[in-house]
């Protein structure tokens, strides 16, 4: 493989992995607090369409990202009211959020389907971007790529070094004990769910404003679900989320490069396009095969409603 190809594939892999990292890390925080929100796909779709529309009208991609984040949070709030206040089933509510979000995004996004946005130029970090092979790929990237790395380091510190992170994990493991010690379980879960929504919104914004940049119905294309699978694959640990997201990014990009390379291989493009989905399934199988890996690592109260007896 020649050096240029390596650099451009690495570049594209990082870009493809970024929305997965942002969304999956957000979901990881919700799940660490014991809340399973299957609505990531819907939150991403709403984030994507809102960010696109606001960027189009205001001309500012950053206002767009902010709007996408808010849209994701609004969707998450809806989920929170249902599952945390009204104690509805988390699986059903998450599915509802996914269906509703994708539908609403298609509805509000209709007028924007033929609109194009200007590409946002990447931000080049001086000196280290000159490193051969990897410099251009890693350090001449979109701001949100750097944000995903900051998010990762921030989350590592938060979960394992900060008091608040300890409380969050306690709420996820045993809400009853956390409540008994005097922590506001429901409020903490709300915050965790909102954080998950905010990150899903930003992830969606990344897709529509920076990655493509355009809006089309169904453009999230299952990334919200893949992010959910990544959290399981990562056994709820941030570092493994990073690794997994880049592996997936790599799979997505490799198939695109093969399709675009003009290599005359006798293999239908649709089969190549389905590789990321098969990869998700394979990874789930590998990681879930040992029942204990999942049982020992998943937050104990994940998906179970909790209502403190006041």
């Amino acid at each position: 493989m020649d050096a240029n190809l390596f650099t451009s594939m690495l570049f594209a892999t990082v870009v493809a992995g970024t929305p997965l990292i942002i969304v999956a890390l957000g979901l990881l925080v919700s799940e660490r607090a014991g809340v399973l929100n299957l609505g990531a796909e819907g939150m991403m779709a709403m984030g994507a369409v809102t960010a696109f529309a606001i960027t189009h009208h205001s001309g500012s991609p950053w206002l767009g990202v902010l709007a996408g984040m808010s849209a994701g949070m609004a969707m998450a709030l809806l989920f929170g009211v249902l599952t945390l206040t009204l104690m509805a089933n988390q699986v059903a509510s998450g599915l509802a959020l996914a269906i509703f979000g994708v539908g609403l995004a298609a509805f509000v996004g209709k007028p924007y389907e033929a609109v194009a946005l200007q590409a946002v130029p990447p931000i080049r970090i001086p000196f280290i971007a000159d490193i051969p092979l990897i410099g251009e790929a890693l350090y001449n990237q979109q701001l949100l790529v750097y944000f995903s790395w900051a998010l990762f380091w921030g989350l590592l510190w938060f979960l394992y070094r900060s008091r608040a992170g300890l409380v969050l994990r306690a709420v996820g493991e045993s809400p009853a004990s956390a409540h008994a010690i005097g922590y506001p379980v429901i409020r903490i879960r709300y915050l965790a769910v909102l954080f998950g929504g905010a990150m899903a919104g930003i992830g969606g914004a990344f897709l529509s404003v920076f990655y493509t940049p355009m809006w089309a119905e169904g453009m999230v294309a299952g990334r919200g679900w893949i992010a959910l699978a990544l959290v399981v694959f990562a056994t709820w640990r941030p570092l493994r989320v990073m690794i997994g997201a880049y592996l997936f990014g790599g799979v997505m990009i490799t198939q695109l490069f093969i399709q675009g390379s003009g290599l005359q291989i006798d293999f239908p493009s649709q089969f190549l396009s389905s590789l990321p989905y098969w990869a998700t399934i394979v990874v789930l199988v590998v990681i879930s095969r040992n029942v204990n890996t999942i049982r020992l690592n998943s937050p104990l109260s994940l998906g179970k409603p909790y209502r403190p007896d006041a």
Partner: protein
Amino acid sequence: MLELEARAEPSRLMPWLSPLLAVALTLVGGMLLFLALGKDPIEGFRIFFLNPVRDLYAVSELLLKATPLMLCAIGLAIGFRANVWNIGAEGQFMLGAVAATGVALYFDGSQSSLLLPAMVAAGALGGALWASIPAFLRTHFNANEILVSLMLVYVAQLFVSWLVFGPWRDPDGFNFPQTKMFDDAATMPMLLEGTRLHMGFAIAIGLLVAGHVFMNHSFTGFRMRVAGEAAAAARYAGFSASRMIWAGLLAGGAAAGIAGMGEVAGPMGQLTDKVGSGYGFAAIIVAFVGRLNAFGILLASLLMALLYIGGEQAQQYLNLPSSISMVFQGMLLFFLLGSDVFINYRLRLRRRAA
């Protein structure tokens, strides 16, 4: 201040009242939505909710639309009752359509009256085979069936796309991504003269009855219900969990596959890349709104079909995107899930201590 208070016993009435409450809230929400979009809400209501039932033909279209929904939903309900979360009915629907199309194309020109039954069987088999992947991976490798079945929806869509762009494309079809039109012997007979309502509706009603009997009057159905409501009790009684996972997923897959067959052999008359039109996802809402119960599913599928057709009407007469249907459908499920809180809780007025 209002607060929720746990009921001593779950309400007997609310499980039935809450869908009605959800429908009422959806109507109110819809009116507000029309207002927000600058449309006359009364006119919007008339077009969205009354146009689809204005005459016999409109009603036949409603029943036609409800057919795949009730088929998919009754299959899903069997799994959902046992907490088997098959959300890939959309993909199983497509594979059913593919298998049925395969039979129709292979026996092209045949006038045999066995062709249609063979297509129904192929549809059921295709859907069940697709659903057997998550079932196998769940029972043997503990892989989450929600994620696996969902991933397979995307794979199924790409598979269909490959077929209709590639080997199965109609050579005389001006390069459209579609197969040739099926022969008369491979299309569903009509139930009502002058409408598009076909045999599939009768099959759907039959399967609703069969589903009801299975869920409420068979031992396996009983075991699945126990597993859903009290997993520990089911384990203690020695009910095999993997058997229930298989039963839930295969039932869901087969029913969705038949629904897919009904679409290609019914209103579509061919396989195209647009065959998966969201029925498999909408059926999740139908199953929940119908309380995972056959009769409820019948009503819920009619309601959801109304929302679909209402969306098409809104596109035609109000110049709104037809995806407004999905907004209404999502709203309905949200309101239902919210209303369900009153099954186990009641609102109580509490005066703050002065």
